[in-house]
């Protein structure tokens, strides 16, 4: 059991990071920390993907000059997925940060529970 964990340490670490990010995004009251949690969660998934695409002893899949045999390169698809995922998470982070700025300008706090209380009083 533990042996498996050590053999697949990239995957194990990325799952731990995913858990940290997920719980931070769900439970933390500070909105900036929530966004950090979101980014940790997404990065954990990218680490997992990158670890899965890597094949020991092979090269980066960038072809220069002639096209040699594919056995020399690592799997390029997970890398492509990571790039797409980074674009997605950057845009989502931007939206979240802009929302945070708007809420902070209005209520002068980053605590989402406190803001909920202020909003309820507003009616």
């Amino acid at each position, binding site marked *: 059991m533990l042996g498996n964990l050590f053999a697949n340490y990239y995957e194990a670490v990325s799952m731990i990071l*995913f858990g940290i*990010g*997920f719980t931070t*995004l*769900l439970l933390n009251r500070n*909105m900036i920390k*929530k966004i950090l949690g*979101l980014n940790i*969660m*997404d990065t954990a*998934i990218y680490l*997992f*993907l990158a670890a*899965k695409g890597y094949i020991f002893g092979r090269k980066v899949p960038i072809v220069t000059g002639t096209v040699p045999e594919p056995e020399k390169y690592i799997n390029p*698809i*997970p890398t492509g*997925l990571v790039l*797409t*995922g980074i674009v*997605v998470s950057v*845009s*989502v982070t931007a*939206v*979240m940060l802009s*929302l*945070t700025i*708007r*809420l902070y300008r*209005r*209520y002068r706090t980053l605590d*989402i529970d406190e*803001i*909920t209380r*202020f*909003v309820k009083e*507003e009616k």
Partner: protein
Amino acid sequence: MDFVCNFPFFCIVLCLATGVISSVLKPKVAKVVSVTLVSVCLVCSFCVLLYTVETGEAFTYMMGHFPAPFGNEIRAGVLEGVMATFFSVIMLLAILGGEKYIKIDVEEPKQNLVFVLINLLLSSLLALVYTNDLFTAYVFVEINTIAAGGLIMIRSNGHCVLASMKYMIMSLLGSGLLLIGITLQYDLTGHLLMSNIKDSIAVLAANGEYTVPLTVIIGLMSVGIAIKSALFPFHAWLADAYGYSTASSAAILSSLVSKAYIFLLIKIMYRVIGTEVFWDSKITNVFFILGVAGMLFGSFSAIKEHDMRRMIAFSSVAQIGYIYMGLGFGTELGMVAAVFHILSHAATKSMLFVACRGLSEVSGNKKDFSDLKGSGFRNKPAGVAFSVGAFSMVGVPLFAGFISKLYLTSAALETMSVKMAVAVIVLAISTILNALYFIRAVISIYTPRNEHYRDASFRPGKTFCVGMVCFIVINFVLGLASFPIINAIEQGLHMFS
């Protein structure tokens, strides 16, 4: 390949392009562009539907120059055609009906952004319906989330910005789970195209390999989508998001966004995992229990509510519960009932949200029951539409809601297990609860009070009336002529597997 096969791709790209263009247009022009675009998508989707019904088989459309296991694909069958057509219709009517209120609720310089978001949302909805690639589905899920969050916060008061923040947080939790599910399944099968994944998973399941990872993958994807579509315990963001945003946004969010995710889940069930493996994994039992709980707790929360918009929002929780209960039966008939309920709920709920905004317009823009009394007389089309919607939600015969309840009950009777008893009893209780709060709402809007709100010069807008009449017609069509639609759904599900 016929020319019609290009239509799904055209629609998606056209929506994305007009979304970009609309950002520099004036609000009026942007509205015209948006309405034209949705109409074009409607016509195209209907052509796709007719084409697939005629040929009797689904077609795949290669995106780019790489064939199947490497490239990206679009796939369209009868069910995709039905969904795309239906989404376009509801989107068009929600824009037409709520157009006047966009002008009232949203600040002048931001009005064209509403249409930008609507166009982007439509593109992501269509892409979710048509795509044959799981990772593309994830990307468009995120685009959908951003566009939906934008539609909530476009009305910039504190409630909406906070609701949007809460919506984004819950949605991103859901998409995180969905993404890790997709990643794990890529690790297991090495494919991202739905048909290839299904073949690999069938082999794995037949050999009895990797049963635990497979269950984890199914669980992660299902829970991710359940969070995003506001299944019962994950519905905390819903009431604020639907209750305070502008009427069109609420209508679009409740009837299209959450439904598109459920449709994606159905696609995952049929086209990615395969129904047998999915139903064997017992995750359907979780759907069933949460669905049933949602039916009850959603209705209880709705009964306690004094705010009409929030009441309708909580009723959505109950209705999403119905859909998940249908999925939870794990039978063919249950799926048909669930898909039909997606249609009937989408048609009814968007009508209710827009009508409710029409009623509150003649009640000093307030939404409490006490202020809305007598508003059915002050704004007649909104009153009629609201009553039709309320009767449909309760499940009175002739209306759409009746047929979906009929199918859900017959699906329950077919299962012959504990689920049957639970489902039938909870359906009965939930119908009574629905009747309690919806009939109360209808009575209160037709109680002749609040004469001080009466404004003799008030005329309901033309587009509002057109929207309401079309919504009512759709409701009756779904209620009275359901057989061709049910047939199409059955045929579409058959094409899926």
